[in-house]
């Protein structure tokens, strides 16, 4: 033993005077650190119940459950995470991955209760003391497990696109599609919102697995027109995509298109099921738009002998005649329709029911009739001068271009309206070398057209005048027209509806142009229905009333498409066709 060993203990005597290390809890409480992973908090009004937290939780501690006061709606499952603290390990992966950033953790760590049940709790819904705690773990800047930005779609430049009818959107490459598909969290909010309830996460998963055949099978389960829908669908799914809360929604529409683009038309037969054997029953379908074609496809899979009657030269209805080629090339419409035809669906063209063929003949010779004749009669502007030769309609312009006519629009065009038809008409006119002005009576944010359509039309050089109400059309020099229009102010609706444009008295401006194209909507034409049928079917404000299987008051007659639903888009018509097919099968098998 050395001397140092002897004296060493006395060299630390100073410790006797030091304050004790320990704190007297609970007299002195010690809050958790600012970043402490304590009890969960959840802003339940920001949360949309996507279930990504449940998906990532490795302990399966999270369940999504209904919560009082939270309604299920589009983009919100109505469920909220319930966490089992007997399982939770406070790793905070749920917080990291939460796409809405509603989930977090407080720095609270003491919770005593004699009832073990309370430790399975719904953060944010149980009025805990830490609910509003600003401290505690949150996903910080510079760290993110999900990608908020979408992969940009290669497109023609606007300088190029306004001169050509070549398809603007060029489609994803394999690498781009894989990157975009990778962003999906498979929450399924899109399935609930899609009118046709397409299994979006399913086919996106197929893209990730590079299994296009599986992808096509999934797509065809709910949509027999994917080549068209993959281009022009109104994509309600993307409006509710949970990734929108992080930045951009997934490009669901383009991913669907990617699957279809990667499969050659001739291979469809090998990949898709051809359905049941023929059962000998006959169904007539009037109108070969998306509703009619979808009904035809699913009925034919169920073994029915289907004949589609259409007044145009080619099948497709609005998706062929109402959508310009630069958005939806005709060969893509053909790709969809040819496959439906290959299943044995007969399509009789150039046959207008009521003129070339009597409706009752169809009614009597078939077991059921489905009609989705769409909205074809454009509304007029209802102003003086609209009967002048230079005034046409958006639909007839699009129709003319489709059948190969080159309409003489002159040099400058005024399009009236703010819907997709108005945008299509404007951009088509632009491609026919016209100066285009769009007049719309409300504000730009009120336009029913797709946001990207509005943006692209502006980029292509269309001038949009909002809060503009056309007053009258007067003849100008030679074939020129003068469109007088007045400014409108937006008057809020006392009942809470959307603001109404009211003309500001005395305001008046004039545009000189060669052609005026009203595109303010269209209505249905039911003149082909004989009176005894009309009496059986109920109508409501120009629309046919149907039950959930799209069955009308006359049990043998089913209806779908724009004449039935308010959304008036292709995918809703397809969904109608699908449910009508189920309805017809149910009806005929019960007979």
């Amino acid at each position: 033993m050395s001397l140092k060993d002897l004296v060493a203990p006395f060299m630390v005597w100073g410790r006797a005077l030091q304050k004790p290390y320990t704190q007297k809890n609970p007299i002195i409480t010690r809050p958790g650190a600012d970043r402490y992973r304590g009890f969960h908090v959840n802003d339940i009004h920001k949360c949309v119940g996507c279930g990504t937290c449940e998906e990532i939780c490795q302990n399966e501690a999270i369940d999504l459950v209904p919560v009082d006061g939270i309604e299920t709606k589009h983009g919100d499952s109505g469920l909220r995470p319930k966490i089992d603290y007997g399982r939770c390990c406070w790793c905070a992966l749920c917080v990291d991955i939460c796409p809405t950033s509603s989930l977090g953790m407080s720095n609270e760590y003491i919770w005593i209760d004699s009832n073990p049940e309370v430790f399975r709790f719904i953060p944010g819904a149980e009025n805990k003391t830490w609910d509003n705690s600003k401290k505690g773990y949150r996903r910080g800047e510079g760290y993110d497990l999900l990608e908020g930005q979408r992969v940009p779609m290669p497109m023609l430049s606007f300088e190029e696109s306004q001169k050509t009818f070549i398809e603007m959107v060029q489609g994803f490459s394999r690498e781009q599609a894989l990157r975009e598909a990778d962003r999906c969290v498979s929450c399924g909010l899109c399935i609930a919102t899609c009118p046709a309830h397409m299994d979006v996460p399913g086919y996106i998963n197929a893209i990730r697995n590079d299994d296009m055949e599986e992808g096509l099978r999934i797509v065809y389960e709910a949509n027999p027109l994917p080549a068209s829908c993959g281009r022009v669908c109104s994509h309600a799914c993307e409006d509710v995509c949970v990734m929108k809360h992080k930045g951009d929604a997934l490009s669901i529409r383009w991913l669907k298109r990617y699957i279809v683009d990667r499969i050659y038309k001739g291979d469809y037969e090998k990949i898709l099921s051809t359905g049941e054997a023929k059962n000998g029953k006959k169904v007539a379908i009037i109108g070969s738009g998306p509703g009619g074609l979808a009904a035809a496809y699913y009925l034919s899979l169920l073994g029915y002998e289907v004949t589609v009657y259409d007044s145009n030269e080619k099948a497709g209805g609005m998706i062929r005649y109402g959508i310009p080629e630069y958005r939806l090339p005709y060969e893509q419409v053909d790709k969809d329709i040819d496959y439906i035809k290959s299943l044995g669906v007969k399509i009789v063209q150039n046959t207008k029911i009521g003129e070339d063929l009597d409706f009752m003949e169809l009614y009597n010779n078939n077991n059921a009739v489905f009609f989705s004749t769409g909205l074809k009669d454009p509304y007029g502007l209802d102003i003086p001068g609209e009967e002048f030769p230079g005034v046409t309609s958006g639909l007839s312009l699009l129709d003319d271009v489709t059948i190969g006519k080159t309409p003489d629009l002159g040099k400058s065009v005024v399009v009236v309206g703010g819907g997709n038809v108005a945008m299509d008409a404007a951009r088509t006119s632009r491609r026919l070398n016209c100066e285009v002005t769009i007049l719309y009576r409300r504000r730009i944010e009120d336009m029913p057209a797709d946001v990207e359509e509005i943006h692209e039309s502006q980029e292509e050089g269309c001038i949009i005048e909002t809060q503009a109400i056309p007053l009258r059309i007067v003849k100008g020099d030679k074939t020129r027209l003068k469109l007088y229009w007045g400014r409108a102010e937006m008057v809020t609706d006392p009942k809470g509806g959307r603001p109404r444009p009211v003309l500001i008295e005395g305001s008046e401006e004039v545009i000189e142009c060669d052609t005026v194209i009203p595109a303010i909507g269209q209505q249905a034409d039911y003149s082909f229905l004989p009176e005894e049928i009309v009496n059986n079917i109920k109508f409501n404000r120009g629309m046919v009333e149907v039950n959930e299987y799209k069955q009308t008051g006359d049990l043998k007659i089913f209806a779908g498409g724009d004449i039935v639903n308010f959304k008036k888009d292709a995918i809703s018509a397809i969904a109608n066709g699908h449910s009508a097919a189920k309805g017809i099968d149910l009806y005929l098998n019960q007979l």
Partner: protein
Amino acid sequence: MVEKGCANLFTRSQKHINDNPKLPPIVNGRAKYNLESGKYLKIWQGPQHPGITGNMSLELTVCGDEIVDCKTHVGYLHRGFEKLMERRKYMQCFPIVCRIAVPEPDFNEYLFAATVEELAGIEAPERALWIRTLNLEMARLASFFMWLGGQSGSFGMNTQGQWTVTMRDYILDRFEELSGGRIYHMYMIPGGVRADLPSGFENRLLDTLKTCEKCLDDVELTMFNNSIFKKRSKGLGIIHPDIVDEFGITGPNARAAGFKRDLRKDEPYLKYDQLDFEIITGIDSDAYTRARVRLQEMYQSIDLIRQILAKMPKTGSFFTKLPNVLHWNIPEGQIYKKAECTRGEYGYYLRSDGSDKPRRIYVRGPSYTHAVSLMERLCIGGNISDTAGLMVSLHTYPPEVER
């Protein structure tokens, strides 16, 4: 049992065995005795025993208070983490790995992240690598503090344990503000780390280091100069240099036997190649030398943390964007990564079959060799009252043996 040519390194116990005709002969490293003879008694130390580092047990055969045979038993702490991970997506494995070695989860986090990153072809940003290095050294210091308390306590000195466990808690305070957790930090994630250093963190850490250094000085005075400690630990549990490779002994246990081996120097990972330090070794290879080596490594660790704080970039990204972790498929392949933890070589083997879940993860914890096979060997001939001190001097963690 007699090792050739190393007479000066004979353990006290080995000499004792050879000199004492009453003890049973050793055949192939195992005592040969008849339990029925009435001369021997079988007792269990553990699995619940303060003298065992965690949940494992020693089945001891004693003759008087001398140990003639020892069998180690594990299995009380098996949680099946390696298997659990085969059923989880890669990112879901990340909260599991920290539980494999409770007192220093960071080595698991780092190695898991590094193996996944390497197979997936992802590079963590520069600053993340520095933060990880910082983290590992903080973990080393905290873990050694806990060991120091155990080592002094196992020889009956309870005071130092109180100090060192407090020091560990001060470091855990820093971990808490850095990562949000005291024990399971879950901070190093594939791709980098989960958050940047909080503001003012460096200064608070430097203050903590100062406190720790002062405490270490006191511990050195009162523990390493304590004659009881010296007497009991010197010559206890000598690891002969010849068996170091045979048993796969690494870390301070090997360095105390004179082996200049340290993965931080030999195969530098993270930012260790940019840090200035020497490998600390000892000669005598007994419990006292091992304790000395570890004490010096603690001072070294404090120095390393100061170096890291001075050298690391002050700003920059700390996380590389990963593919969507909900369906992250790692390319097919296999990899083994290792790091120098407080107890030696810590290794992670990862085998991927190209799916979103690991096909196999194997964890090499240095405690496995130290606690299971080496302990059996070193115990023999020792005194039953020294078992606790011997076990702690090997610095073993049963959770890492069992996973």
